[in-house]
């Protein structure tokens, strides 16, 4: 016999403060992409810094007939951990892709089979602005730098200037 819920509450649509598990997000992302649409969500983590930062909003688009190329930032399910990763393609080999986070020097994800790739990043938003650096033609150069370890060297060299650029941008925003 069916058990009745004694605590009847008025049906309601909830909009704010919804926290969903990562597995649910992957499922929804795959469904959206399979319909040929883009998926927009908030990224977490630092593995793609400084091009994608923790809290940036990214849009993942479905793969086109052309497979992802060198420098593309792709979304994939890691074959071992089954976790969703958003990292850069360093090179291709026999249909598989060598992928690594820009901020994970010497720690590549390994050769990821093409079928594990679920989409590619087409847009990054930060504080309401579209961030293009890292997704344009320079992405190929970034992949080469990442592969050779020079991206990390350049990142370390740039660290002292971060504060300067941040202050400058804050001044520009104020004026």
């Amino acid at each position: 016999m069916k058990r009745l819920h004694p605590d009847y509450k008025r049906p309601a649509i909830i909009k704010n403060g919804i926290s969903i598990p990562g597995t649910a997000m992957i499922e929804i992302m795959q469904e959206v992409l399979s319909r040929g649409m883009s998926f927009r969500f908030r990224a977490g983590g630092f593995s793609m810094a400084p091009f994608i930062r923790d809290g940036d909003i990214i849009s993942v688009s479905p793969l086109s007939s052309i497979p992802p190329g060198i420098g593309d930032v792709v979304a994939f399910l890691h074959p071992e951990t089954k976790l969703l990763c958003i990292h850069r393609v360093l090179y291709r080999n026999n249909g598989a892709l060598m992928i690594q986070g820009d901020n994970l020097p010497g720690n590549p994800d390994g050769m990821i089979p093409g079928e594990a790739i679920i989409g590619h990043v087409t847009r990054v938003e930060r504080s309401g602005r579209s961030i293009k650096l890292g997704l344009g033609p320079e992405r190929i150069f970034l992949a080469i730098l990442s592969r050779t370890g020079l991206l990390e060297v350049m990142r370390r060299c740039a660290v002292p200037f971060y504060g300067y650029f941040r202050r400058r941008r804050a001044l520009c925003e104020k004026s």
Partner: protein
Amino acid sequence: MTKSIGTDMVFARSNDVVAREIDGMLIIVPLTAGVGDMEDDLFSMNETGTAIWNMIDGKKTIKEIISGLKEEFIAGQGEITKDVTGIVEELLKRRMIVEAASS
């Protein structure tokens, strides 16, 4: 203009939403302008709302949904009828469901 909901009307979930019930939690992401936006356009429903959503299948009339809900929850017929038509109106307004047919 809000359409009045008749109890013989039948509604179906819109093709322009992705909905999943995971661990008892209903998640609805509308697909707007070619984008499924989980950052600014993510919805869920409470237990009663989820029960109604699950009965909106393109076959059941509003009357049947009301009966189904009455079998699940302890509440008066009048209250349930008012709530079901109210939530259906809201879902229609948000284009999460579409009218399938009138029986």
